[in-house]
């Protein structure tokens, strides 16, 4: 790559190929319309084309590629969940992530860091042991570690938390990673386009039309588009889409905020999460501390950010890492999280023939990008839910078959 760059610098003309091919004109009919050009929408399009030969597909995105939660998340990838259903699903995703850079011929900066979930109370320790046992049962690298081990790996952390809530131990997950979120969406988007899929940005779906209980197409601000299958992959906008079909779900939208500090020298190569303090942190490849917390206190369909959030977060962060009191916050932002009562996603077919739902990704869906794309593509291609997503159906709530992931997903995204 450096040699190529050098050659390019000496060249007279700028004849580098475009990253994305030129956008094609919008047609009036497709086999499959995917609403939402985030990571999930792009991954679904990619696997539809690559694994099922379905290429007459349009991804419709109201803004720009990856401009939703995909481009706003703190990119933690892990599989140390609490339920068997969750562990199996997220572990498949992790395996796909490891090969993505090669698949795409694009560096997604996948960086395996090791992931600590700190416990400051007896009950938190109990949950960590429970998670470790479930994880090990499924062959996941996950263990409870003591204070000395943590201190050795994260020497700058104040294990007493300013004497307020001493760390008692942690769940350690060696495969825990971070990645470049934009590159994941771009890699899938380019891969899908190269196989014939069309991506239309600045194209908003305003209604979904049905005929005798079956989807026939979508209304957009650029006209009506016929489609046999419509897949909704819009995360924080899900209730606005399901409302078009009068489908009710348990999803509630809460803002989730994050922020970064000014860059500092690399000092921390692990990801640290504290469920009790409601904060988590990792250091980016640029040296910034990427920090986040749990969702905002009340339901809201908005990406506004607040001072309350930074105040609350930095207060806890300074207990964990006292020296951060000297750092400046550079940027803060928010995304809209589609939260479910059991902190697990909602995926698969719906009561409306030809309408598929991929939602309920809340604060935890970036890590699921590859596997949800793959399993949703399978579900659409075969009109039958993929084995891995059967537990995540929309009617599990009516059957009182919840997949309780709160203990593993509410703070440690």
């Amino acid at each position, binding site marked *: 790559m450096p040699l190529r760059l050098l050659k390019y610098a000496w060249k007279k003309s700028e004849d580098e190929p475009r990253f994305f091919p030129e956008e094609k004109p919008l047609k009036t009919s497709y086999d499959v319309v995917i609403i939402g050009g985030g990571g999930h929408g792009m991954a679904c399009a990619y696997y539809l084309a690559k694994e099922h030969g379905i290429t007459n597909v349009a991804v419709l995105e109201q803004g720009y590629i990856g401009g939703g939660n995909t481009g706003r998340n703190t990119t933690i990838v892990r599989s140390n969940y609490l339920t068997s259903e969750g562990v199996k699903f997220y572990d498949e995703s992790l395996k796909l992530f490891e090969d993505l850079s090669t698949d795409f011929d694009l560096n997604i900066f996948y960086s395996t860091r090791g992931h600590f979930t700190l416990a400051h109370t007896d009950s938190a320790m109990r949950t960590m042991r429970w998670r470790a046992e479930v994880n090990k049962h499924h062959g996941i690298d996950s263990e409870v570690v003591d204070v000395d081990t943590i201190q050795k790996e994260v020497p700058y952390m104040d294990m007493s938390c300013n004497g307020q809530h001493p760390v008692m131990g942690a769940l350690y997950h060696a495969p825990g990673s971070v990645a470049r979120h934009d590159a994941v969406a771009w890699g899938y988007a380019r891969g899908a386009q190269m196989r014939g899929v069309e991506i239309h940005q600045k194209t908003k779906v305003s209604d979904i039309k049905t005929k005798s209980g079956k989807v026939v197409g979508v209304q957009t601000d650029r006209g009506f588009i016929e489609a046999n299958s419509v897949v909704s992959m819009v995360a924080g906008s899900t209730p606005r889409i*399901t409302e078009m079909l009068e489908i009710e779900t348990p999803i509630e939208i809460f803002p989730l905020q994050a922020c970064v500090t000014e860059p500092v020298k690399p000092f921390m190569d692990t990801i640290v999460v504290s469920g009790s303090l409601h904060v988590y942190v990792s250091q980016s490849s640029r040296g910034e501390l990427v920090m986040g917390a749990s969702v905002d206190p009340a339901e*809201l369909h908005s990406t506004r950010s607040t*001072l309350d959030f930074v105040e609350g977060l930095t207060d806890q962060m300074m207990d964990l890492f006292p020296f951060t009191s000297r750092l400046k916050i550079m940027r803060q932002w928010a995304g809209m999280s589609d939260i479910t009562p059991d902190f697990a996603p909602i995926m698969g077919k719906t009561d409306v023939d030809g309408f598929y739902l991929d939602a309920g990704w809340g604060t935890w869906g970036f890590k699921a990008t590859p596997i949800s794309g793959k399993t949703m593509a399978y579900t659409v291609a075969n009109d039958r839910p993929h084995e891995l997503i059967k537990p995540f159906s929309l009617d599990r709530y009516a059957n009182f078959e919840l997949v309780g992931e709160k203990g593993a997903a509410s703070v440690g995204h």
Partner: protein
Amino acid sequence: MKFVTCPSLGRRALSEFTFGGRVEKETDQEAVSEREWAEYVFYHNGAPKTQQEWWYHRPTGIWFLFQRNTLTDSITQVDFANKGLTNDA
């Protein structure tokens, strides 16, 4: 910081309150089917709207009902949840 004006308490920081979810008419658990009960507990239309919500004022221990728009975050009405209450805050 966001503020809200309450009967009796006056202008207070919203951060003094805890969100208690939207107000919904509870169905009669004994009379409805399991499906209807699940509908009540889980399923709803979560699109942006103005709704009535429970909010708890932690310093005084009083429950309020807010009318709030979940798109704009504007609070248009504040009442005591306990209708008989007037000014004991």
